């Protein structure tokens, strides 16, 4: 393919949106880091920007080469490596904030999500695959492929990361027509189960419930105490605003006090006066830091940039003729969207608080490279996946 063809097929909108997001992310990390004490945090924006440059190299490389070649080559080894790393991290990983997620500077769980997506795309993408793969056995295979890393991630424990994988894989299997009836049943079960869980916690924790009844209900709720606490804060936000509800309250204060035009770069008081929990202001709560300083205008700009980043990926999935390419584009974009939606929704109090990074904005190097690699693959799909149609 000629270079000019590359340029023409290259999806510039998503690329430009990504660069803009990296710029905003760098600023947000700078602001969040400066509010903390410690040289490490002050210079965090630099290392993150360095990582973004590295990620950009990965992105361009993956975009340049034909995804079909490297996916075919790497799907199985990458998946196997990811599972091995997830096992290793559980045995020798570094503990932070109540979870074993780190292998030195690196979080295997982030990378493993991309490995699962490429594995599924490689297996279920080709339209000429054997018919059994669309049936019950194919579903079992897919469930096993998703389930093994999911259970390992859940063991860390990192419920949020595990959950973001679910919509992406479900959508991929649905589009690949893998035993749709089961998928629909599973989806319904998830909705019913989630509602039941919320209802049970509500029944148990609402004011005036006797201790015995509360314990009787909670026996059937498969949540850890800290998760129950978060759900409770979500259900009863005004109860106990200084302790359990503190994070939620501070998140809302910082975002809300930003107002229409924001307080200005590095002027976010909630962040700089450390009311916003410092341990997570650079990661899970970075949106609050950003929204306080950039205001509603900045928040809408950010949402628009995420739209400009992700909608072209869905468009790519629509226009490509290759099944693997379509699954990759949908899987990656849905994974990124799940992060964006859950993170911001949690910051604005629409869903219970879950520890999830906001792509490009949060400080987190493994995740940044992972997301950029994934989007690089989608770019490659956009460039190389249309050849057969012409």
């Amino acid at each position, binding site marked *: 393919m000629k270079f000019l063809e590359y340029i023409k097929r290259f999806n510039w909108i998503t690329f430009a949106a990504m660069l803009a997001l990296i710029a905003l992310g760098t600023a947000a990390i700078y602001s969040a880091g400066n509010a903390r*004490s410690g040289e490490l945090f002050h210079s965090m924006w630099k290392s993150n920007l360095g990582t973004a440059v590295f990620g950009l190299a990965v992105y361009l490389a993956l975009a340049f080469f034909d995804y079909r070649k490297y996916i075919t080559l790497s799907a199985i080894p990458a998946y196997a490596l990811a599972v091995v790393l997830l096992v290793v991290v559980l045995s020798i990983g570094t503990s932070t904030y109540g979870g074993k997620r780190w292998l030195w500077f690196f979080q295997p769980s982030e990378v493993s999500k991309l490995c699962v997506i490429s594995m599924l795309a490689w297996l279920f993408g080709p*339209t000429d695959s054997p018919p059994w793969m669309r049936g019950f056995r194919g579903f079992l295979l897919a469930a096993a492929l998703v389930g093994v890393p999911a259970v390992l991630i859940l063991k860390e424990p990192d419920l949020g990361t595990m959950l973001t994988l679910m919509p992406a894989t479900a*959508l991929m299997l*649905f*589009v690949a*027509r893998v035993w749709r009836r089961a998928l629909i049943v599973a989806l319904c079960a998830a909705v019913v189960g989630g509602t039941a869980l919320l209802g049970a916690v509500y029944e148990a924790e609402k004011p005036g419930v006797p201790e015995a009844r509360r314990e009787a209900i909670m026996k059937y709720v498969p949540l850890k105490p800290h998760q129950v606490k978060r759900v409770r804060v979500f259900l009863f936000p005004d109860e106990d605003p200084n302790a359990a509800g503190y994070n939620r*309250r501070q998140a*809302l*204060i*910082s*975002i*809300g*006090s*930003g*107002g*229409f035009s924001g307080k200005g770069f590095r002027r976010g*008081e*909630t962040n700089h*006066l*450390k*009311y916003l929990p410092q341990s997570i202001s650079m990661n899970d709560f970075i949106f609050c830091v950003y*929204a306080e300083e950039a*205001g*509603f205008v900045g*928040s*809408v700009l950010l*949402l*628009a940039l*995420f*739209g400009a980043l*992700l*909608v072209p990926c*869905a*468009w790519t*999935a*629509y226009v490509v003729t290759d*099944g693997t390419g*379509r699954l990759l*584009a*949908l899987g990656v*974009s*849905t994974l990124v*969207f799940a992060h*964006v*939606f859950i993170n*911001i*929704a949690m910051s*604005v109090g*629409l869903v219970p608080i879950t520890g999830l990074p906001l792509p490009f904005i949060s400080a987190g190097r493994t995740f940044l490279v992972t997301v950029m690699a994934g989007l690089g693959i989608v770019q490659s799909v956009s460039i190389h996946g249309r050849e057969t149609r012409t």
Partner: protein
Amino acid sequence: MRDDVRLVSDLSALATGVVFIVGLVVLGFRLAQIQLVDAAKYLEDGSRQAARRVQTAGPRGRIIARDGTVLADNRASVSIVVSPEGFQRRNWTETVSAISNAIESVASAIETPSPLSANAIARHVRQQLARPLVVWRDVGDEQIARLVERESEFPGFECVETEERTYPEGRLAAHVIGYVGRGETTSAAGEKFNFRDKEMKGRAGLEAFYDGYLRGSPGELSVTVDARGFAVAEETVVEARRGPDLKLTIDPKIQRSVERQLRGEYAACAVMDPRDGAVLALASAPAYDLNLLVPRLTPEMQERYVGNHACRNRACFETYAPGSTFKPITALAGLAAGRSAFAEYECTGVFSLAGMRLHCARRWGHGPIDMRHALKESCNTYFCNLGSEIGTNALFAAARAFGLGEKTGLDFPQDSAGVVPSAEFKRRNYNLPWYAGDLAQASIGQGQLLVTPLQMARVAGAIGTGRLVRPHLRADAPVESSPVPFSQRQLAVVREGMRMVVDGGTGKLAGEGVAVPVAGKTGTAEVGRGATRRKNTWFIAYAPAENPTVAVAMVVENGMSGGGTTAPKVGEVLKTIFGEL
């Protein structure tokens, strides 16, 4: 089949894009609600949690005497303070010990031990974190120099200018002025502050009585604090202002003269203007230098002076039997009851009643004596007879008419009412009936009658002018007076008698050399029995005898006699006021 697959897949891809857009729009609406609709509420929540209201103290007003002499002032003083912001550690215990260690190293640098206990530092960190902690108050130049020299070694420490109370006249009118301590600022009800700075608080005397007046009007500081409560920035909202000066009626010239006369004695004196009640001098001895109580009242000073019974205020707090200075009142009661001033009683030197014998000052008696001469010679027999004749009610009605047995209304924390007894009073306090002897005793100012020197100065003035005034110390206090219920003719008799006391009578030493005619009355009250028996010697006076402008009452404990001990001292005071012949 293949086309069908394609179609569904395509639509799924498009549907996915739509879901992305819908999801982002939902977030956008939620953000609009938070950042546009409810923005003001969150902005307020945010600033409320980060803002602390601090009430700051304004400088205290001065106390100034009649002639402009400053009796209480503020002097510049330097305190060394430490700001907790520079000592943020992982936990509070470490923060407290970091501050504590820093204070210790500064203490050795300035060679002054820290007056703060570890507990005091911990309490400050717990309760006043956003405010600087005052470590050394009122430090000297040498200590300041040592700290400034090595300032860079001690970040967080600072010399700040503050004010301390000072009393330029030292012990002059010490009991009247009182002293200050330190306490948190106070404010109007409903005003809520997170922190209040320390300010001077009047603890005794006029400093206490006029505390609200002298106090500076407080300022307000808005301190922005971080999530842990450390101060980040501060902004003055209201500037603190100096309190107004309190101008007194006290005349330093007279006060000094009075104090000179009292020195070395256990004594008290009140001098006032009987026309408007202005207290010209109010003194109690022994006194002490008020500057010894600055910057703080130490337990040692408390024990030696302020809390020492010997140093109590004798001028308007301690009460004494008035002795013979009460006789003018008995005389007026007699006149009011219809007794003639010319009626005579035979004085044999002793008054006997139901087995009780009261001796007259003149052992062999005055012989037949009338009212004026009875006053002049202070004849006990005369007044015992007169009092016994007119009865308890008439006698004590006259005493009450002169304001005895009730507070004078002086603008001062200590204003004793004294005692005008009654049958009921005696039964309650002594569980004894009221005897005829009690009345006879009361007629000559003995027994259960108790008065303050200030009350007696007021009595002397009221006899001289015919009006009983409320004494006051603040210069611009309103004048309150009421006529005493005696006719001018009745008063004239007593005035004549009192004039005769000084003009050749028992109190002649009070008038010697004074440029104006003086009227007065001596008193020698016997207190205690047996070994503790002693005499409190009185002299009350007003001058000039016609149209008096000054009324005086002085009591000297353990004196010889009113005429011998106290009258000459009052004479010296009057000479200071009116000049010498």
